[in-house]
């Protein structure tokens, strides 16, 4: 057994614990907690039985090399998460601007000329 096969599951379990804790304290939705746990569980599985998982994955995706399969899949997930992050920031920026505009107009309404 390699060192990373111990380290990666430990880190993953820690992040799963954080996700669950955030769900329990109401900071995350159940869906978010479940999704993150699923991702960390997958990472644990790949770390513990890398060949079994990656060879199957390569076969399913039709990619010859199991290493390439895992890299492509990881990139795909990262891009998806990045896109979600981009949309969230964009939406929040829009909300902030909308609030600032409304506050500016409301304050004017309250101030007699």
């Amino acid at each position, binding site marked *: 057994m390699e060192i990373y096969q111990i380290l990666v599951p430990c880190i993953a379990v820690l992040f799963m614990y954080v996700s669950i804790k955030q769900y329990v304290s109401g900071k995350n939705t159940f869906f978010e907690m479940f999704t993150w746990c699923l991702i960390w569980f997958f990472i644990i599985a790949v770390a513990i039985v890398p060949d079994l998982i990656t060879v199957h994955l390569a076969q399913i995706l039709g990619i010859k090399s199991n290493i390439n399969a895992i890299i492509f899949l990881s990139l795909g997930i990262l891009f998806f998460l990045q896109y979600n992050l981009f*949309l969230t920031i964009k939406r929040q*920026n829009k909300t*902030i*601007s909308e609030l*600032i*505009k409304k506050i*500016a*107009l409301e304050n*004017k309404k309250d101030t007699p*000329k």
Partner: protein
Amino acid sequence: MILTKDNILVIIPVFNEATHIEELIRLIKGRGFHNICIVNDGSTDNIEQLNIDESVTILHHIINRGVGAATDTGFRYALLQKFGGVITIDADMQHDVKDLDVLFDSYQENEADIIIGSRFLKADNQIPKIRILYNRIANILVFIFSNTWITDTQSGYKLITKKVLEKVHLRTDGYEFCSEFIIKVLAQNFKIKEVPIHVYYTDYSMNKGQGIVNGYKTMISLFSNIFFKD
């Protein structure tokens, strides 16, 4: 609605322009435009402490959101107060207030929905080459999306009628709002007329406008708003 100087609101988006704003207001009033709205976009130069005429409306953004957001706040105020139209003008004194009449007279003659003051239709304007380049790129982008060639899509000197303000809603906050606005206006078949205006570039106004990094951000923001609507 008939547009007169009395039912036009002059909107001045302002970010750290306290040194010029009183002079600009005085000049605008001198041209017979008495409805003025300053949108203070989170300035940090104590604009509140200036001795600005009480007849001038000042709207305050509590934090800086960009010239597009500030202009949009002015548009919303104009609609709330039922003005017949607006004229937007830059606060850095690069525009000549005499051209307020050029925009206004052109509206009276043409009755277009928007009159754009174009810096590039006046041959004797001394425009820095880098500004010409930025503007040309923006013009090409607008042409790609609207199939209409406008000589100065980035002009901050425009007369816009109420019916345009009612139909066109801005999504972008920064300089890219100029391109977004023109694209949306053309998509709704509003009539645009361009008239030549004077422009005066100083070191001060050159530092206020778009640089290379800002221009890049503007382009990315415009594209992201066109392709990634949420």
